[in-house]
């Protein structure tokens, strides 16, 4: 499990370049807890993109949505063993694809 999570980074990044027009993107805020997703695209400002990347969240990596907070609160994701809370507004800018 951990292996695939750690290694999937590069492989899926290449996949994205080969086929940039992936048909069915969802955004991270729509994902139900427990689901595993691949980050496809992040459409945010330079600073936010950098911040996410520093925590390991960049196109191509696999995330597991752990839980969401009520009242439009953040999404808690597990990214290769690192827990990151992402505000709902920011999660809306992260395009993902669900791994079935």
């Amino acid at each position, binding site marked *: 499990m*951990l*292996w695939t999570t*750690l*290694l999937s*980074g*590069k492989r899926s*990044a290449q996949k994205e*370049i080969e086929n940039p027009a992936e048909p069915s993107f969802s955004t991270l805020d729509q994902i139900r807890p427990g689901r595993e997703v691949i980050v496809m695209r992040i459409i*945010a*400002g*330079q*600073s*936010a*993109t*950098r*911040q*996410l*990347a*520093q*925590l*390991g969240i*960049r196109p191509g990596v696999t995330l597991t949505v752990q*839980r*969401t*907070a*009520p*009242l*439009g*609160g*953040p999404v*808690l994701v597990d990214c*290769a*063993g*690192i*827990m*990151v*809370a*992402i*505000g*709902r*507004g*920011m*999660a809306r800018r992260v395009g993902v694809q669900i791994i079935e």
Partner: protein
Amino acid sequence: MKIALVGQPNCGKSTIFNSVAGYRAATGNFPGTTVRLAWSRVRLNGMLADLVDLPGIYSLTPTNPAETAGRKFLLHEDVSLIINVVDASLLSRSLELTLDLRELGIPMVVCLNMMDEAERRGIKISSQKLSEFLALPVVETIGSRGVGVKQLFREAQRQVHQPPRPASLVAWNHDIERSIRRMQDFLDADSSAQRLPSRFLAIKLLENDEEITREAGIAARNEASRLREQIEQTHGRPAESVIMSERHDCAMRLFNNSATLTRPRPDPRAALDNLLTHRKWGYIFLAAILVGFFWAVFGIGSLIERAIAGKLGLLTALLLFHIPKGSLEYSVVASLMDGVRGGAGIILPYLVPFLFGLAFLEDVGYLPRVAYLLDGLLHRIGLHGTSMLPIILGYGCSVPACLATRILPSRRDRFLASVLATLVPCSARSTVIFALVAYYLGPMWALGIFCFNALVVILSGLLLARIWPEISAGMILEVPRYQWPALRVLAGKVWLRLREFVVLSWPLLIAGSLALGLGARWNFDHYANAALRPLTLVLGLPSSLGTTLVFGVLRKELALVMLALALGTTSVANVLSATQIVVFTVFITFYIPCVATLVALVREIGRKMTALAAAYTFVLATLMGVAARLILPIFLGS
């Protein structure tokens, strides 16, 4: 000689720092940086060095002012050695910072910390291989138990004059490497001498780093943007994203070559998180933890206060036994002792458990969970979860809270958070609430004041957010795993804050007490009180309390001791009505932050905004005081 401890947030840097620095640690401003850094003078085999604990940074491309300050220190402070603390359980991510740091060309030791945690997660690291690949010495440590720290500093000693050697495994993709070289050649050809390694500058220019780009010459800037475009064309995405992935791949390669993975052991802390960040239970536990914290501080505080007060009273009586009443000596000794008693008998009993509890919550890693839980709520008042961290720190002391707002990238968020953080009762103000309201009226009243304060903070947030509307970028916050903090680290932290009280406020308290005592003797206080009569009149307080309110500007806890002095008695309840006690406390809690906080605010949000904030809090305090004065008698029936 300066040695910098550098690492990503929550890597256990401060634990390593504390185990070396212990009680000698101090915080101080360094020239060129405005951030207060913890530092300590350490002896390395007879050599004296300043060990500096830098704030946690994820990379050398800053995304908020705290990281900017940390990088500035590294770039401009003549650091002789970097100790890069790495969380071994998050090795691949942490190595990205290590790779960035290597480019600075400063001698460096990698401290592979939290080895026990890595093992639990099934990550087996060969530090020898890692050291070979990085061409840097690597020392394994378990900071929380002090394992390996001695070896770390022995290695540091050995490395001081050894800049990093080139390493084979950290080479980048050919075309990126070529772009870096070209940029580097361009910079080297530039006649103006640079202090920083050209390779580091070249990489940062290609990454479109704001500050470095600004400082580069026009020609270099143009060359950089030309090369960036080139990279973007060949790779199909922005140059900085390409470089970041390169660094990431590099770190991953290092990780794969030096670590093996086995089955992780189950982590009971995951179950704890299921509860503490639960959609429903999370909030119930949050409330329970806060109320429990409150009861514990008050319980322990009043226990100590009772134990100490009698003994100090006895000591004072003994000292005054031989001095004739009414003489100058009597006034001097009596008021000096009042100051000493105020510090030891009223303030310290509450301050110590409070600081301890807060440091515990901070170090155990609970605060990011609070931020997670409250983010949704905070969005309604125009803030987001990350803003909660400085505000919670405000319960300890407003000064570090103002500094902590630097973790917020947006200027507007920083302004809001720092104003709200100063409205929150700091430990000094909490002392007033505990020792005055809880002690005389009962703990429920004190809890009421805390809740009332929280309400006012929320309303102020709503108001300020309306004045300065902006769509918040939203929270991106790492939620670290729970860690049981070492007692040594907690004690070090508490002592760092406590020392401020002992060396700064306590003497001020004693001096203030003396001034008040002598003033009363020669009737000076009369004039001051007369000048402040409009205020005391509006608030419905005895006019003799006018001066005490002024002392609160210096340090909030002064107001409390001065209150007892001004009234000439320590049993306040005999002189003031319940309403007056509450009005006094509410006013002290809200009005203009103390001098130290004002200075910190000026530094963070500027003079004009600080004046505005001070005026706002003064008006707010007066309004709240008057409101309390008018409303409370209805409930109290007096």
